[in-house]
């Protein structure tokens, strides 16, 4: 059996928020609600789900960039919450993130050169300037940016180019585990394919492990070995990606797949979801998907379907799937 890279146990994250006209109501939003799962070495775990369902929050907690309210995250057997900051900093070298919002996550006062050398200077100072420079030009060409990009500032690039800078930054330290939060969403299909091929290449070459967050189900299918479908802070389904896509067992999985805009036919039919868009401060009773589920019945409104195993490594949360 492959080594465990990430172990998540009963993980919960809530955010307090003020609302109402005079900020008089305090309520808490549950972004991640009691998750358990494992990621093994060499796996790419795909994470899909509606906007706001907690994907970024989960990804950040895996890297200890956000502190859980309860539960446990272990990285290669070490509990991140118990680690001291020095150990944590060392560990950081081995785990990186490609942020979802490239513009917001790149320091606008730094040139690309400085952005890319920041981590290297911290962890590899002893290797010398020349080595660092070499490493930077290596990753730069890997993501398909010109050498002269180094002297430019983030705002001088197009959206897709900025996204590539974010990917380059994550790669500089040769991490073993990378959280890719929508790494290709701003790229056109051809560059997207180049970057995905690159990520797969690196994975093979260095045995990398990824958590791959994306809205694009075709991309996730291509990249992921296993996939988790998330809804309002919980997984609705998790399993080997071939199985999940082929069987389309969970109603939410079916809806997501049918909503992909197709390029071969105009005016496609799709399953429509009904009901109010959900929010994490008022999670429905029973199955949390029931207000929007086309198959919901009485039991769905009252009883939580739980987490059932339906096949090898294949888990589902729905009353009517066996």
């Amino acid at each position: 059996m492959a080594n465990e890279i990430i172990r998540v146990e009963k993980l919960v994250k809530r955010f307090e928020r003020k609302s109402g006209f005079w900020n008089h109501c305090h309520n808490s939003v549950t972004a991640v609600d009691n998750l358990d799962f494992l990621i093994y070495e060499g796996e790419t775990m795909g994470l899909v789900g509606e906007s706001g369902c907690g994907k970024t929050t989960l990804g950040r907690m895996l890297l200890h960039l956000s502190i859980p309210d309860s539960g446990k995250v272990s990285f290669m057997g070490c509990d991140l919450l118990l680690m001291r900051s020095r150990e944590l900093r060392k560990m950081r070298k081995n785990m990186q993130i490609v942020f979802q919002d490239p513009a917001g996550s790149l320091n606008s006062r730094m040139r690309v050169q400085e952005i890319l050398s920041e981590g290297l200077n911290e962890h590899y100072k002893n290797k010398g300037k020349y080595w660092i420079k070499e490493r930077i030009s290596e990753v730069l060409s890997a993501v398909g940016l010109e050498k002269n990009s180094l002297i430019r500032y983030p705002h001088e690039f197009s959206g897709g180019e900025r996204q590539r800078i974010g990917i380059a930054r994550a790669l500089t330290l040769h991490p073993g585990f990378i959280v890719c939060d929508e790494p290709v969403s701003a790229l056109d299909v051809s560059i997207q394919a180049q970057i995905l091929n690159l990520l797969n290449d690196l994975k093979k070459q260095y045995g990398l492990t990824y958590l791959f967050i994306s809205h694009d189900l075709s991309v996730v299918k291509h990249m992921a070995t296993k996939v988790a479908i998330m809804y309002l802070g919980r997984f609705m389904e998790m399993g080997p990606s071939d199985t999940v896509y082929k069987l389309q067992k969970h109603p939410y999985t079916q809806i997501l797949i049918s909503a992909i805009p197709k390029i071969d036919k105009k005016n496609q039919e799709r399953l429509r979801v009904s009901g109010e868009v959900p929010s994490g401060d008022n999670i429905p009773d029973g199955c949390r998907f029931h207000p929007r589920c086309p198959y919901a019945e009485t039991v769905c409104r009252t009883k939580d379907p739980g987490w059932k195993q339906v096949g090898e490594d294949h888990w589902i949360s729905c009353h009517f799937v066996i």
Partner: protein
Amino acid sequence: MGPLLKVENLKTVFMSERGKVKAVDGISFEIEKGQTLALVGESGCGKSVTCLSILRLLMSSGRIEKGKILFQGKNILSLCNRELRQVRGGQIGMVFQEPMTSLNPLMTLGQQIREILLCHNKISKKEADTRVVELLRDVRFPKPDKSINLYPHQISGGMRQRVMIAIAVACKPLLLIADEPTTALDVTIQAEILDLIQYLKESYGMAVLFVTHNLGIVRQTADKVVVMYAGKAVEEANTDDLFEKAIHPYTRHLIESVPDLHRNYGDFLPSIPGKVPDALHRPEGCPFCLRCDEEEPVCRELMPDFYEYKTDHRVACWGAIHGK
């Protein structure tokens, strides 16, 4: 009456330390009232700069060197600041690529939407507040009446984009410029936003200039498509023709690179080898020549004309000119 928007030979450059960057290099297109035009093309080819030029929102290092932008027959490039403010956010709404940077982090969602409503309409604060909630509901924001006091950092990327769309359509614009409005959204919300844009289009004849990488969306929503490459338009056709009878080698490659859910690609997705030429060192001839597998000697020397291959289908490629 002429088209709603007519862009004529637009050239936009940036002055940078490295020299003059020709971000948009002579592009022309038209949008009729109520029509949806999709602008597609490789990252960095000049789509966003085209959109920003139309609204004269370029940062100080950018300059429109040449061309005309006629909106309802009036050249936007010669409007005074006051007229320009009326057009921006009023008759032309816009949604930008990176929602976090275009929302004010210090203002609540409600304040930001209200501001635009009060700026362009003669309505009371109370009416504006009602309309804010209505707009948030239109973009399917959860709990619209309670969400108005949230700050941008408190909501997810996709929610921010919905707020941006609410702001953009707040004044019922005639033209909506949407630069990758759904890139941050999941498929179901994306589908809802596209339905919403469609609904707004039909209900008050709004035209849309749509920039997206998602060719599936282009197929499902656009009436016609302009394909850009390295600052230039290389093909223009109505949507069905473009997907079924693409002529330019770049367009054909682009369509082939779309990952299909039902296909197993093994380790490699098809992609176009090589990369877009740097905006500072573009080849003399066709910008795609370095990556093209149908290249002829003339391709490297001369830029082919953007010519009418057949009715409503234009292309800039020597292969097409030579009847291949």
